[in-house]
């Protein structure tokens, strides 16, 4: 087995025991990136060679020298007999929305394309301190605004390693693709409405959105501050547990980060699922969307193969002793997207105010009459389509004359969604769930350009994921099969507040129970031809 196929857990073990050097893992990752990634995303990609169409394009920037330096430091620690950390030598990619000191941090936007932060995000710092090797910054939808990666100002945007004609999902598309294509073992992503889980599902990897406040947001360029959650992407559940173990915990510099003690996530994986109550909800079997003219709510059942994967997983878990609780009502799930449209955009518009061409980032090169023209031109030229749409909508729904009919109402819907989960998880309630089992997405990955440009439709692909952002509860996605086109299906486990250990435990059990399933042997397109040991 090649070094790049190993899990983070295995890498850290081999490095710690001295069997393989961290530097060798760094080199192997760099080679894999050279082999499958193609040109990195850039503002001016120019004419591309046709061969680039078969590449992953996960990275905006490969930080080779830093990676080698970090690996050597880990090796030095081991040579000195010092503790190298839980993630010693593990190749990691970082979504380019996290600030890393001295490394260009773009948010995939022209407006801060050349921003070099003077500080490092807490999550990244904790990973590096635990011995992880940062290979570089990976692509995303501009400012994380999207579900396909196509809105990135850095083109070519990332492809799906399973079929490069398809999108990897988004906004953590570069993260999911870099893990699926074995360029790295782990990636740090963010999830505001599903931005870790949807691309993880599309790319056939594991992704965890932790509880709001479990992982510090410091150094994460904010999208919607009340919903943003940094979290891990990996190729198996154990690796996400390992990565969360390192990142989780209070950060005094993030007032919203939780002071609750961090559970032993790896320890929790040792337990089975006997007696656990796992719920299925009919409200996760269809996507609801309003008619743009009448406002009436239409629904469409989720993709057949996706639904079957969820039921298959339920059966598997039931056979292992879990109790499946059917017909759990989650009636407000269908309002998750409209509420998200409003709340996230109000916060986003405000968070984007600081990009004004005055202090840093893009400023129009044109001569301007006055300050307002400087703002208008710099922002008009610096922001792409998605940020502009979100700013317009955010400004509109938070305007004094509209706030009560949109923003305040959306906040009410949000608390209703939250109460759905409270009922489902209430230990004295009717359902007493340990986890809710759903699909992660309504469909598998879609083709490039198939949805991009339709902001509404694109957003409705997040309906299965967004409710847990509203509620602040943790949710895990993991591969649950392949569809008829050979594209990965993601299934989701949603847990109660700060019960990451529970969904990781169930996810790990499911992974063990299905280890020998035929679909698990199928490899992503970009890895085919690779020799398997």
């Amino acid at each position: 087995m090649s070094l790049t196929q190993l899990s983070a857990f295995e890498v850290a073990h081999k490095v710690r025991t001295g069997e393989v050097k961290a530097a060798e893992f760094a080199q192997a990752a760099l080679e894999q990136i050279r082999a499958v990634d193609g040109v990195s995303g850039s503002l001016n990609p120019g004419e591309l060679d046709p061969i680039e169409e078969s590449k992953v394009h996960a990275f905006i920037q490969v930080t080779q020298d830093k990676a080698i330096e970090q690996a050597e430091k880990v090796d030095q620690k081991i040579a000195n007999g010092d503790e190298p950390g839980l993630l010693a030598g593990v190749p990691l990619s970082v979504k380019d929305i996290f600030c890393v000191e001295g490394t260009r941090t773009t948010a995939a936007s022209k407006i801060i394309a050349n921003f070099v932060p003077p500080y490092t995000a807490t999550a990244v710092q904790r990973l590096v301190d635990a011995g992880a090797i940062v290979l570089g910054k990976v692509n995303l939808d501009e400012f994380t605004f999207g579900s396909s990666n196509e809105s990135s100002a850095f083109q070519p945007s990332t492809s799906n390693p399973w079929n490069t004609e398809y999108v990897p999902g988004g906004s953590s598309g570069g993260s999911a693709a870099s893990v699926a294509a074995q360029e790295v073992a782990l990636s740090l992503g963010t999830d505001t409405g599903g931005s870790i889980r949807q691309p993880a599902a599309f790319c056939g990897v594991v992704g965890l959105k932790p509880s709001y406040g479990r992982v510090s947001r410091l150094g994460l360029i904010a999208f919607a501050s009340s919903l943003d959650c940094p979290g891990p992407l990996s190729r198996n559940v154990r690796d996400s547990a390992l990565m969360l173990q390192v990142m989780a915990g209070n950060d005094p510099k993030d007032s919203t980060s939780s002071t609750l003690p961090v559970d032993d996530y790896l320890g929790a994986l040792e337990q089975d699922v006997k007696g656990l109550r796992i719920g299925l909800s009919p409200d996760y079997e269809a996507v609801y969307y309003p008619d743009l003219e009448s406002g009436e709510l239409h629904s469409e059942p989720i993709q057949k193969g996706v639904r079957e994967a969820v039921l298959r997983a339920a059966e598997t878990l039931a056979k292992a002793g879990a109790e499946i609780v059917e017909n759990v009502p989650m009636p407000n799930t269908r309002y998750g997207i409209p509420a998200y449209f409003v709340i996230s955009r109000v916060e986003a518009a405000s968070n984007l105010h600081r990009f004004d061409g005055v202090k840093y980032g893009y400023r129009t090169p044109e001569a301007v009459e006055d300050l307002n023209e400087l703002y208008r031109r710099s922002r008009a030229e610096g922001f792409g389509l998605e940020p502009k749409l979100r700013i317009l909508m955010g400004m509109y729904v938070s305007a004094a004359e509209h706030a009560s009919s949109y923003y305040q109402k959306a906040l009410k819907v949000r608390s209703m969604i939250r109460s759905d989960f409270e009922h489902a998880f209430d230990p004295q309630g009717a359902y007493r769930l340990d986890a809710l089992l759903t699909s992660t997405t309504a469909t598998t990955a879609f083709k490039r350009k198939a949805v991009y440009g339709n902001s509404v439709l694109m957003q409705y692909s997040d309906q299965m994921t967004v409710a847990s952002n509203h509620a602040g509860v943790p949710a895990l996605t993991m591969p649950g099969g392949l569809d008829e086109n050979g594209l990965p299906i993601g299934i989701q486990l949603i847990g109660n507040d700060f019960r990451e250990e529970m969904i990781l435990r169930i996810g790990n059990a499911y992974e063990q129970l299905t280890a020998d399933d035929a679909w698990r042997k199928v490899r992503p397109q970009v890895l085919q031809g690779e020799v398997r040991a």
Partner: protein
Amino acid sequence: MKDYEVIIGLETHIQLNTETKIFCSCKADSWEAEPNTNICPVCSGLPGVLPVLNAEAVHKGAILAAAMHAQINTKSYFDRKNYFYPDLPKGYQISQFDQPIGRGGYLDLPLENGETRRVRIHNLHLEEDAGKTKTERGVRLLDFNRCGVPLVEMVTEPDLRSGDEAAQYLIRLRQLLRWIGVSEADMERGHLRCDANVSIRERGTTVLNTKTEIKNVNSIDSVRQAIGEEAKRQIELVESGGKVESYTLDWDADRGKLTKMRSKETEADYRYFREPDLLPVVLSTEEIDAVIARLPELPLARRARFEQEYQLSAYDAEILTSERSLSDYYEAAVAAYAGEAKTAANWMMNDLSRLLNDLGKTADQLVLKPENLAEIISMVDKGKINAATGKSLLKKVEETGKSPSEIVDDEGLGLIADSDALRKQIEGILAGASAEVASFRAGKESLLGWFVGQVMRSSGGKADPKRTREILLELLNKE
């Protein structure tokens, strides 16, 4: 002309004297610092950073709310006030909106006619300051040093009726802020800033007419003058058949003129919403009770008590309560002094005040302690030293740190009350002034004053005047 009254409300911004800024660990005070040297990623609004609330700012805000008799809220929230301006690096100001730390309250103003004007407070909220912008040689320059300095915004109801009253309000507010120790309240340094809303109405009516807002009235004189000017303008306008429009006016203190900045037909929409990066500010009722319990006696209460307890005139009581440290000093001196409280007051008002002025110190910074002052006054009372020596002792104690009696002993400043020594000295003087002695004895008794003067001169002022006269008369009348 109709009889008009002027209706004034003030919006004040008070800079809290915390150690650090409200959301980061930069120092709060940047006075005289080079531009953009007291900043960090948080207060300069770099992407990805988060605010962390300074507990000291909340505490001082609560103290101010308590001193204003406002209701302190057990739960208040920070909100974002969104607008674009280059001195606002995040593009929004973290402020409080509908659930601020303090609501209601009032400040009483003693008026010259003996009445008291109660000025009601609408609310008090905590917020961060913005930076400064200036234009130099056609280039716009920004200084972010002030970004993130903690402010309390305090808005009054339209309860003031003249520029003088508005000035009084600022004077009393400044006194209170320093008294309770939450702000240096130095208007020149922008610790206390003021905008004034002015309208007029016919006396006897209760309507509130269209108001104008005067920005940048940042000194007591400016407030008095600017409001006076604006009231005059509005009255003249209305009298000539015009109508007051909703303007924002800028006060140019150098030229003593108001200029129109912009009309305010449409209210700006700041699209307020809860700051998602901060948790609600929670104060338990125990914490609030403790703030109220620890609040010192406030200036007007203390003034009234001084009048009653120490039998001081209103004027004396006012002066002695102008600053908390001065009034504390006075009470300590009275406690250490056995004589009349009024005597101590006179010393404080004249000699100690002069010393404070000369040294540029506040009473609590003096080396000369209240007990020292009490001792000096007592020595004068008992005739151990004369009043002039007593006054000079204030400075000597302040400079040397020695006790007054120590200095009197060391420098031989005590009065010569010893009869033998004094008698010898007087005999010597009489012996050397036979002509004057003869004249006296011949009936020119007015010469006694001359003899006393000679004794005083030769003793360097230390002779006890009463005893000197007695001995002189005895010796001169001996024949």
